């Protein structure tokens, strides 16, 4: 079974933020929430790099492990999704997430937290696929249509790659071999290879 991942080629990201905008538009993400954002490292200095970051849909996802109500779940293509109906807005996933992906609308609890919202890998949620409930809570379900996340599919420099992890790794490696430099895949060791918490 293919394992979906994101890979941002930091040497190609031009910080156009189109990925964030496309995501917001595709899923009608509410005001104050960004499921994908671009972070610039060493801004204005030599070695400046920008990286587009969202939920990385980790292996052994820490958010799912700490969720006190078990509302976060993983699918067999690696995509990590959650159920907004059971979420209690405690914020634990935010403390556990290595990438700051979970977002909380400021609608309750002393004006700080509502139901968690995060990148769904354009795969909707637990509601009936393509239902209005799914669309309004989680956004479009492109995976169910056999499409990849909109952020990667429309990335103008093809910096952001999505899809089968083995294939995007191959695409990236070929690219690095051709041009002769590459930073590695940002966040991959933390998201996918961390074995500290696994006892076999």
């Amino acid at each position, binding site marked *: 079974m293919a394992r979906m991942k994101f890979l941002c080629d930091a040497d190609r990201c031009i910080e156009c933020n189109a990925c964030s905008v496309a995501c917001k538009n595709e899923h009608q993400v509410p005001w104050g929430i960004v499921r994908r954002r671009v972070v610039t490292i060493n801004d204005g200095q030599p070695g400046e790099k920008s990286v587009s970051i969202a939920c990385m849909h980790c292996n052994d996802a820490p958010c799912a492990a700490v969720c006190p109500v078990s509302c976060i779940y993983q699918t067999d293509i690696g995509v990590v999704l959650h159920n907004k109906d059971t979420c209690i807005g405690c914020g634990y996933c935010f403390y556990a997430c290595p990438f700051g992906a979970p977002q909380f609308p400021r609608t309750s609890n002393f004006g700080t937290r509502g139901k968690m919202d995060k990148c769904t890998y354009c795969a909707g949620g637990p509601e009936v696929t393509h239902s209005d409930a799914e669309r309004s809570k989680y956004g479009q379900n492109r995976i169910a*249509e*056999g499409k990849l996340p909109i952020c990667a599919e429309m990335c103008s420099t093809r910096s952001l790659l999505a899809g089968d992890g083995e294939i995007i790794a191959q695409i990236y490696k070929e690219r690095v071999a051709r041009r002769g430099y590459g930073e590695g895949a940002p966040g991959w060791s933390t998201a996918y290879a961390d074995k500290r918490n*696994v006892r076999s």
Partner: protein
Amino acid sequence: MSPYRIGGGIAALVLAVLLVVVTVQWLRYSDLVWPTVSIGPTTQPSGSSATVGQSTASEPSVTDVLAERTRLQADEANRKPSGENENFVFQRGVSNGDSIAREWLQQAAEQHELLTPPRDVSGLSSLPYRNADRLEQPEGRDWRSEHNSPVRFGGSWLIFGISLALALFLFARGRIQIVEGRSGETVPRFNAIERANHWMTASAFIIMGLTGLVILYGKPLLLPLIGEHGLGRVAWWSAWLHMSAAVPFVLGILVMAVLWLRENLITRLDLEWLRRFGGFLNDDPHKPSADRFNAGQKLVFWGVFLGGLAALASGLALMFPFHWLGYHGMQWAQLMHAIVGLLMVALIIGHIYIGTVGMEGAVDAMWSGRVDRNWAKEHHDRWYARIINEWPRRPSRPATPAE
């Protein structure tokens, strides 16, 4: 054998079994997250597809469709996907989720040329939101393992352990009796304000304790019983009740400090009291001297007061996330809140035990506000001597005005 000792023995047996169960669970514990939902083609009724004679093998699999789509991102690719608008659905249940999760970890480890060491990375973001500039914080995984394993299991060990110790004590010693028996006359110990405040704090604490335990232990204990939807509802109410009950609780411990702090300052008597364990171990009527509060009660007072303040500080941080703490701070605040809460639950279990089952005549102090003279003499001799001088021969029943 008194019924108290028999009860203590039975409770001790049950608790010992629970402790063993928790220990075994801890040793076998692995919280590897594995997939529980599968994606596949729309399930067609098997009868109808057979009539058309179309083999299901010609249906494109999710893997193939997404893999083809993935390849379109390669630089040289200027192709169209062979098909569009497939229709896949998500279904609960993955038969071998455990092995899939392990395989993924294995696969990722093999991509070593792409892996950079995990590190804290912050940059600059054009977004005005808090933490939008954070790219990576690998310590989230550390917090997860601390929260899930030592805190959760350590907490259950603490709670069952302290209860087992109390049950064994009850089994071995029985209820601590008033050695000279009840005199039938009482003296006032706590006035109405003290009692009202105690019970307000106590009920708030019980609400907070139970709701806090739902948040910490709901997933392992309640989820199998009431399901995901039920747990979501219970936990939602718990989170709200927990925060609401914080208001009377904090008010209560502040009033307690005003009422009782002076009398709870540590004195030399307390060392002697602790050294002799309050005289609880035998029926000698000459128990170690104590003023209004003995060392055990002082322990409860300071535990509740200081623990309450620590829980308040960390709880406020959790209520207003990232207002004055960063990632590390929030993670520590959560751990501290859980640990302080669990310690206070253990302390209060001891407090409830000695105030009710464990000691004859103790509950009267907080219930009716009046205690038996002999109880007062045995456990709080200095205080008793003092009040006897202040209110000579105060009758146990309310005096009529004519008297």
